[in-house]
């Protein structure tokens, strides 16, 4: 008797990953077209300092958030209908989520390389600056790692929100939204500048703490694990709606 089957997990990974990457490629294509058109008409776009990898980071976070909401609201009923256990669905979709997050970064690297190629052939000046985390840049491998972790937080946080909307009532829905916003905003602020400022009735309250790279990474991984734990508890015996 098994509640997790390798064959089903692989099918779920394949299905979810391919579907989400199709959407990711569409979204990337639209962003590239918009950027190219903008560059033709607006001079500032011709001389951006930031690399393509950096430029797609924020859109990718929104994209991963949307994917998380869709995952939470729609997928479980399909897979249970197919005879896939909740645990296989959870494991497969989790792996697919990480893979999509990493793949968006690899698309960013590819676009950066393409932009450097375009620079060699046209007057266009490609940006080279990587995203700033903890107030500094960290080179491609570490930037990709940090961005992948942050994209994953967006995905799993939104998955929780989507699933809460699927399964629970008003109060839980509200709590999930507030919790999600606090979590994602907090992490973004942490990685942006290593300090946070909250203003209460005009009084600035600084939550300042110097995080080292390893401690920030560990904190982020810890949050990811906590999100995955919450998701597992929510999903493992969840009823599935028939609609």
């Amino acid at each position, binding site marked *: *008797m*098994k*509640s*997790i*089957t390798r064959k*089903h997990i692989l*099918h779920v990974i394949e*299905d979810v990953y391919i579907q989400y990457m199709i959407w990711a490629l569409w979204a990337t294509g639209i962003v590239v077209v918009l950027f190219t058109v903008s560059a033709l008409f607006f001079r500032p776009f011709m001389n951006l300092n930031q690399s393509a990898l950096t430029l797609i980071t924020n859109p990718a976070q929104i994209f991963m958030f949307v994917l998380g909401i869709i995952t939470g609201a*729609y997928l479980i*009923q399909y897979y*249970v*209908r*197919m*005879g*896939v*256990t*909740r*645990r*296989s669905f959870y494991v497969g979709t989790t792996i697919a989520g990480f893979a999509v997050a990493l793949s968006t970064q690899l698309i960013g690297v590819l676009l950066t390389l393409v932009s450097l190629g375009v620079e060699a052939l046209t007057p266009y000046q490609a940006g080279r600056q990587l995203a700033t985390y903890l107030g500094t840049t960290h080179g491609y491998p570490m930037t990709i790692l940090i961005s992948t972790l942050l994209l994953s937080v967006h995905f799993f946080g939104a998955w929780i929100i989507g699933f809460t909307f699927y399964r629970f009532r008003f109060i839980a829905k509200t709590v999930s939204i507030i919790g999600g916003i606090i979590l994602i905003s907090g992490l973004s602020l942490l990685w942006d500048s290593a300090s946070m400022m909250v203003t209460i009735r005009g009084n600035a309250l600084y939550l300042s703490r110097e995080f080292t790279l390893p401690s920030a990474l560990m904190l982020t991984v810890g949050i990811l694990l906590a999100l995955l734990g919450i998701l597992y508890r929510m999903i*493992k*015996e969840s*009823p*599935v*709606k*028939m*609609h």
Partner: protein
Amino acid sequence: MASTIEFQEVALEYKDTRALDGVSSTLEGGCTYGLIGRNGAGKTSLLSLIASYRKPTGGRVLIDGIEPFEQAEQMQKVWLAYSWDMSEESDSIATTLKQNAAYRPDYDLDYAFSMLERFGLDPKKALNKLSVGMQAAYSVIEAFAVNAPITIFDEVHHGMDAPSRQLFYEMVLEAREKFQRTMILSTHLVSEMAYLFDHVLVLHRGRLLADEPYDTLVERGVTITGPEEPVEAFIQGYQEIDRKRLGRTLSVMLYGILKPEDMERARRAGLEVSPVSLQELFIHMTKERSRT
């Protein structure tokens, strides 16, 4: 291939509602079961437990002796066909069938495509472009193509037109002859589908009112027809379900099994004795219970 389903004192509670209350029964492999009940009787709740959509809050559901909830092998033995929202399904029928086939080892794609033709469905058409009846036909085709040992239809055929429903009934009979498949047909169309049932489960307010072979159940009622006075005299002591009058001819439906001597008495009095339909019995059984 035949699989047995066992309900042991099964209960299911939602927040404020007790949907199932101590349901116990054994569904033998290879038989076709009719599951009938009024709206809100608990039919869909019961079926959702077999398909592991939910976990019972009390008692146990067993498939071949094992609880199916979160057991991959048992979950693969069940296919539950129901009317689900296809408005977001922009993939074609063909793509969807092929994608779903990856999850079910015995999925017969050739059969599915041949049945699409019989139902007049275009495989290239997107699911969300199909009419309600066509979506129902798609669900029925897929349910048979999956070849699951336990196949459940939860009122999925109600959106179909009469010719399509007839085709569906033929598929049920064909599947019963060819495969040792346990089928459960949950329906309101009792009179139309009664001939398909080997066994009938009547569910009312979360409890099983009847769990009997079809033939045994319909023997529980008789219709006595004849001239008014002898009919009135004959039915004394029996529980009356319904009566109809045409001129001086009276036809009375009775609940209960006629004793052999009463059968003989009816024959001598020139009264016609005929069986009551399952639908009439069902209406009577659930109406009586709703009064108490």
